[in-house]
C-alpha cells in the first residue's frame, strides 16, 4: 500500500471502481504521475479519464480544467490525438452541459464557448443533437422559454449519431421538458420506460425520479411518490454527484411529513454540499434545506442535528433553532440565486424557485 502505483495501474484500479470520489482520486493521482514522469500522450489519456471521472464525481470544475488541457494539446497536435476524437467530443458535451452552472462565469464567455463548441462539432461532421439538448437545458435554467423551445425542437430534429446521448438520457430530456412546462401527467407517462427499469444509465433513473417526485404529488399520486422516493433514494451513493438530487428527496420527505427521513438525507450530504463553490448544485441543496427547515420551523422551535464541523452554525451540543437554520440556508441559496440573476441579467433564478416550490403548500392527500 505504501508503494506508489504507476499510471497504468492507477487507471486500471480506478476503472474498476464505481463512479465517485474514490475513482476520481485515483485518476487524479495517475494524472500527477503522468505529468511528472511520463510523456504527453500518457498524460492525455489520463486526463481524458480525469474529465470523465470528475464529471461523474460531481467535480465539474475539474472537468473544465481537464478539457481545457486536452483541447490545447489536441488543437496543437491533431494528428497525434486523432484516435481520441470521439472521446474528446464526448467530454465537450459535458463541458457545454455544465459551464452554465457556475455563476461567476459571465454570459458572454459562456456564449463564446457555446459558439466554439458548435463550430467544432460542425467541422468534425458530428450531429448537433447532443449540443442542442445542452442548449435547451441552459436556456430553460436561464428562463428563456422561447430559446428553450427552439433548442428542444432542434434537438428532436437533429439526427442521432455515435455522439448522441443514450436513450435513457434522451428520454430524461423529454420528461424534463414536460415537467418544466407544467405537464406533470404527461411527464409521468413519458417516463414509463425509466420507471419500469427498462432504460437506465449512470444518471438515470436517479436524476429522472428525483425530479418526478413533485410530479407524482401534483398528479395526485402520493403513494407512488412515496414508493419512488424510497426506491430511488436506495440508489444514492454518499458522493458529490448526488447532492442536488438529494435535495429533491429532502424536499419531498419534508412535504410528506417524513421529517426524520428528510433530516437523515440532509445530514448525509450537508458536509459535501458545503464543499462546493457557489454553483447550481449547491444552490439546489441549500434551497432544499431551507424548504425543509421552513416546514420544520412551523412545527418545532429547535431540533437536534448533526451539522458538519466546518459549518458556521455548528455547536457541540448539536441542537439548533429551526428558524436559524432556515435563515442560514435560505440566505445562502438566495445569495447564489442573486449571483445567477446578476450573471443572467434577469430575476428568473430567484423567482423560479419560489414559483416551483408552490406545490409544497398543497396538502399531501391520498396517503
Amino acid at each position: 500500500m505504501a508503494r506508489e502505483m504507476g499510471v497504468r495501474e492507477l487507471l486500471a484500479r480506478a476503472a474498476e471502481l464505481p463512479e465517485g470520489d474514490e475513482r476520481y482520486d485515483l485518476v487524479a493521482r495517475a494524472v500527477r504521475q503522468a505529468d511528472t514522469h511520463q510523456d504527453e500522450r500518457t498524460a492525455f489519456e489520463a486526463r481524458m479519464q480525469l474529465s470523465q471521472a470528475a464529471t461523474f464525481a460531481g467535480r465539474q470544475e475539474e472537468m473544465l480544467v481537464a478539457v481545457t488541457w486536452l483541447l490545447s494539446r489536441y488543437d496543437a497536435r491533431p494528428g497525434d490525438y486523432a484516435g481520441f476524437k470521439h472521446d474528446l467530443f464526448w467530454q465537450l458535451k459535458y463541458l457545454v452541459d455544465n459551464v452554465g452552472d457556475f455563476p461567476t462565469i459571465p454570459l458572454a464567455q459562456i456564449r463564446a464557448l457555446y459558439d466554439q463548441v458548435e463550430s467544432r462539432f460542425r467541422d468534425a461532421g458530428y450531429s448537433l443533437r447532443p449540443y442542442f439538448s445542452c442548449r435547451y437545458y441552459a436556456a430553460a435554467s436561464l428562463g428563456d422559454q422561447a430559446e428553450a423551445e427552439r433548442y428542444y425542437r432542434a434537438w428532436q430534429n437533429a439526427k442521432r449519431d455515435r455522439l448522441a446521448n443514450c436513450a435513457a438520457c434522451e428520454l430524461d430530456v423529454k420528461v424534463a421538458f414536460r415537467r418544466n412546462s407544467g405537464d406533470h401527467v404527461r411527464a409521468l407517462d413519458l417516463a414509463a420506460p425509466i420507471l419500469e427499469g427498462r432504460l437506465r444509465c449512470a444518471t438515470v433513473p436517479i436524476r429522472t425520479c428525483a425530479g418526478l417526485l413533485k410530479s407524482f404529488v401534483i398528479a395526485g399520486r402520493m403513494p407512488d411518490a412515496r414508493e419512488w422516493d424510497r426506491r430511488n433514494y436506495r440508489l444514492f451513493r454518499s458522493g458529490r454527484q448526488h447532492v442536488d438530487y438529494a435535495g429533491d428527496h429532502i424536499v419531498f420527505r419534508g412535504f410528506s411529513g417524513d421529517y426524520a427521513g428528510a433530516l437523515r438525507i440532509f445530514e448525509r450530504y450537508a458536509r459535501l454540499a458545503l464543499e462546493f463553490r457557489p454553483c447550481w448544485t449547491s444552490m439546489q441543496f441549500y434551497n432544499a434545506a431551507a424548504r425543509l427547515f421552513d416546514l420544520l420551523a412551523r412545527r418545532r422551535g429547535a431540533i437536534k442535528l448533526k451539522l458538519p464541523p466546518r459549518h458556521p452554525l455548528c455547536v457541540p451540543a448539536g441542537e439548533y433553532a429551526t428558524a436559524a437554520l432556515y435563515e442560514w440556508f435560505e440566505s445562502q441559496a438566495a445569495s447564489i440565486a442573486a449571483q445567477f440573476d446578476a450573471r443572467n441579467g434577469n430575476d428568473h433564478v430567484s423567482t423560479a424557485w419560489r414559483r416551483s416550490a408552490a406545490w409544497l403548500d398543497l396538502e399531501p392527500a391520498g396517503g
Partner: protein
Amino acid sequence: MVVRMSTDSTAGDHRFQVDLRGLIDLLSNHLYSGPQVYLRELLQNGVDAIQARQRQGPGSSGEIRLEVLGVGEKTTLVFTDNGIGLTLEDAHRFLATIGQSSKRGDGVDRPEDFLGRFGIGLLSCFMVSDEIVVISQSAFAETRPVEWRGKADGTYSVRELDRAVPAGTQVFLRAKPSMLDFFDPDRVRSLVAHYGEFLPRPIVVSAGGQTGTINRPVPWADFDGRDAGQREALLAYGRETFETEFSDAIPLSSAAGGIDGAAFILARPTTVAARAAHRVYLKGMFLSDNVRDLFPEWAFFVRCIVNTRELRPTASRESFYEDRQLEAARDSLADGLRAHLVRLGRRDPERMQELISLHYIPIKMLCSEDDECLRLFADWLPFETSAGPMPLKEFRRENPVIRYTATVDQFRQVAPVAAAQGMGLINAGYTFDQAILERLAEALPGTVVERVDSQDMADRLDDVSLDEREASFRFMRLAEAVLQPMGCAADLKRFLPAELPALYAVDREGEFRRDVERVQEDADPVLGDVLGSLIEEDFASPARLYLNYSNPLVRRLAGLSDRETQRRALEILYVQALLLGHHPLRSREFRLLNDGLLACVQWAVEARGRARDENP
C-alpha cells in the same frame, strides 16, 4: 419480418400469420444462448408436467428419461416424462398456439408454479430438429393418446392413437444433420447434468450404451456452516464449479425469494470487479452463472451459488424482474453475508484479521456504507500512517485524535512535520479511507477525527521569539515581496525536522487554482477566460510558505545583508518546497528554478575562483 398480414381480402377480423421459421430465428438469435437450450426447455416442460400431475392427485412418482437412439441421420432423442399429459384438445390449444401457455394462472393454478412457457419452450427444439413428434396420454382425462407432429415449416398434424400409451408425454426429435453435435451422448449427458442435476425428480439419461441418473444431491442443502465435513465437501464443489480457490463457505438464505445456497470466500485478494458474477438455480434448474444484481456491490470477494424458488427471471434469464421481492431478497442476502462477518469478528478475531488482510478493499467499501460493520471492523482495518502501515487500533492506541490527510500528496507534504512532532497522521488518500474515517466520528461517539491539510499543520508550528522576529523582520518583508507574485504569503516559524528549510502549505482550492493557472498557460483563449472566471479573485486562504527558523541555513540567510543572495535563495527554497510537496510547477516557477540554479552555479564557480586566487 416475422409477422405478415392475412391476404384474405374479405372485410372483417383477420388473424396475424406467423412465419414459424422467422420466429425460431428470432428466438435462437436473441433469446436463447444457443441450440443446447432445447434440453433445458424439455426438462422444464417435463418438470412442470410432473408437478401438475402430482398436484391433482397422488400416486405417481415423477421421473424423466432421455434416450439418444440411432446413428447418423437417424439420430433421435426421446424425452419421456410421466407427468400430466395432454388430451387432443390440449394438443391443439397448447402445442400449436404460439405463446399460449397451459400454465396461465386461472385460479387453481398458481402462476409461479409453472415456469417455462410451454408454447415457446417446445419451439426451441426446432433449432436442432426439423420435426417434433409428441405422443402424450393424459393422466386424468378419459381420452385416447394423441400424436402431434410439428414441422419447422409451420405445418402440423394431430391424431388420436389406437394403442395404449402410459400416462405422460414423449417427445421425439430427429436430429438435423447440422446439429448432430447436440445429440452426442456425452454432450447430452453433460448438458442435462448442467441444467438439471439438482432437480428434485430423477432424470435418467440413456445414451452411447450407458444408462444412469444424472441427479446429484444439492451440495448446500441443510448447510449451516457448523459441520466441518459438510463445509469441506461444499468447498470442493465450489472449487470445481468456479475453478478457483476458496478459503471458506458461508450459508446463505433469504425468505424473500425463497433462496438458499452458499457464498464462497475467495482465497486471493481481488480488486473491485464490476460486480462479481454468481451462479443461480431456479427451482433446481440451472438459470445462469452470470447473475450480478442479486448481491451488494461490496460482495466482490465472494462467489455465490444459490437456488431460488420464487424470484422471476427476465427473458434473458440473466437477471430478475425488479420488484419488491427482489429488493427484499437482495437485502436478506446482504444481511446474511454481513451477519457472517460480524459473527466471525466476534468469535474468531484471528481469522477475521486474516480475512481483512486479504480483502480489506471490499471490507472497507462495506464499512464506508454500513455503520454496524464499521463499528466492528474499523479497528482491524489497515491504514498507512506517518509511522508506517498499521491497523487502526494500533494507531488509536498512540493517538487520541485520528488525524488524516485527504490526499496522498498532502500526506507527503505534511507527514515529515507530523512525524517530527510525534504526531500520528493517517494517509487517507486511498480508496474509501476518508469515507471510513469520517463515518467513524459519527458512528462511534467519543471518537475525534480531524482532517488535516498542510495549512492546518502549519497552525501547529511554533512561533519564533520576539527577538528572533525583530532580527528577521527585513528578511521576511523581502520574502513577502518575492513570493507575492507567486500567489503565496510568507511566514516564519520554528518546527521540526530542522533539516526542512521550508514548508509549502496549500489547501484543495489553492491546488485547484494552481492547476487552473498552469492549464491557462497554453489554453485556448475562450476556455482560458472561462477558467479565469471560475476562480474567485478574493480568495480566503492563499498558499503560504513557512520558513523554518530552526533550520541553520534559514537563520544564516535571515542574517545576511546581501539582498540579492537572499532573494535568490528564497526563490529556490520556494521551488524546493513545491517540489518536495509534489506540486507541478507553473512556468514562472520553472523560470525561477532555472535562473536560480544558474545563479547558484555561477556563485559557486566565482567563489571557487576567488578561493583559488587567495590560496594559490
